[in-house]
């Protein structure tokens, strides 16, 4: 391949011969390969193939000009409050917190059978609709734009649960991302990250002490 056969007609210097002289030009590619290997090594070490993923979030504005009336109140029946605490623990309560009953705050886990199972159950209508939509997309009945539009409509539809995520100071960033991830997996369109209140901290401590705090108050 790297040989070039030149058909030298011998010019006129030699005997005026009709004999053709073959000169084989052999190019050695070994240094070329060496250099390429070096370059490849350089690129493999200094670059990364995968681009980082991102998660887009919209935080509520804490603008004071938004009046109480403009803020839409969450219906208690649709609200699920998820409390992220230290040591990868996660708790949740539905609707209004009940400070007297320590069992109103339920412990859960980040595992598939934990908080995800609960949210999927609460959001089953939207989840099944989204799955149908995904099927349609796979069969190429609808385009990507139609899909995103429809999916957004389903996610923000009526009777979908609203999840309030609250994290304590000793929860880690991973916990927060995991919680946000569950929202993606469970197709929940309405969720918000809120600051933890004293009441939520009370609930956690109450649960850990099996209702001691609320008994003390009742006395």
């Amino acid at each position, binding site marked *: *391949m790297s040989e070039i056969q030149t058909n030298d007609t011998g010019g006129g210097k030699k005997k005026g011969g009709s004999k053709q002289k073959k000169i084989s030009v052999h190019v050695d590619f070994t240094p070329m*390969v060496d250099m390429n290997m070096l370059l490849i090594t350089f690129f493999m070490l200094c670059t990364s193939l995968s681009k980082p*993923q991102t*998660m887009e979030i919209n*935080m509520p504005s804490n603008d004071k000009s938004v009046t109480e009336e403009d803020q839409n109140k969450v219906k208690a029946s649709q609200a699920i409050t998820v409390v992220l605490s230290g040591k990868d623990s996660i708790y949740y309560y539905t609707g209004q917190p009940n400070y007297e009953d320590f069992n109103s705050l339920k412990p859960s886990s980040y595992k598939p059978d934990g908080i995800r199972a609960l949210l999927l159950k609460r959001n089953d209508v939207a989840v099944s609709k989204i799955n149908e939509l995904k099927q349609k997309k796979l069969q190429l009945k609808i385009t990507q734009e139609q899909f995103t539009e429809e999916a957004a409509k389903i996610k923000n539809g009526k009777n979908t649960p609203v999840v309030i995520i609250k994290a304590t*100071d000793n929860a880690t960033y991973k916990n927060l991302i995991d919680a*946000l991830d569950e929202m993606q997996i469970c197709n929940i369109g309405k969720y918000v990250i809120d600051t933890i209140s004293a009441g939520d901290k009370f609930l956690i401590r109450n649960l850990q002490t099996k209702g001691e705090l609320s008994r003390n108050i009742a006395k």
Partner: protein
Amino acid sequence: MSKIKVARKSTLIDMTAMSDVTVLLLTFFMLTSTFVQKEPVQVTTPGSVSEIKIPESNILQILIDPTGKVFLSLDKQPDMIETLTSVGRDLGVDFTSEELQKFKILKTFGVPIKSMKAYLAMSTENQDGVLKDLGIPTDSTDNQFKVWIRNARIANPDLRIAIKADQNTPYKVIKSVMTSLQDLRENRYNLITSLKVESVK
């Protein structure tokens, strides 16, 4: 005794095919990969199922390390100069054009504004060594982080904010960054994660 004659064979191997393969590989790597950015602290981002890719340009990246130090990086050099000048103006530090030129080429920055002059005067190796112990102050009494973000936004209105934090960062730190952003009415931003595959069932 008859002598066994070993046929002389040329040991020359044709490297052309090999060369073809390496060139192909090289082309592949050059086209698909992006350069790793030098960061002062090693950060492991948590995994998520999100599949949105981060946009190419106009990124203001907020890097948060596990101990809560905050660093910033901007991808456009003109923005860097403009931001530093206006931050300096706001916080009462004047920078010479030489210092601005030095600042322009920094990949990541995160130095309290008081020590910025001294930092810029250092050599590159010293800068790397010192940077990981510094960081932009984010506490409520001296929130220079807010000033940086505000001026970066003025310098480039199309800027997208991306937060890159280590997975073991306590939420407390994240919260202070998020509230600072909220105070500036930056309510939309991206959280950088790595890919994790997970199915619903």
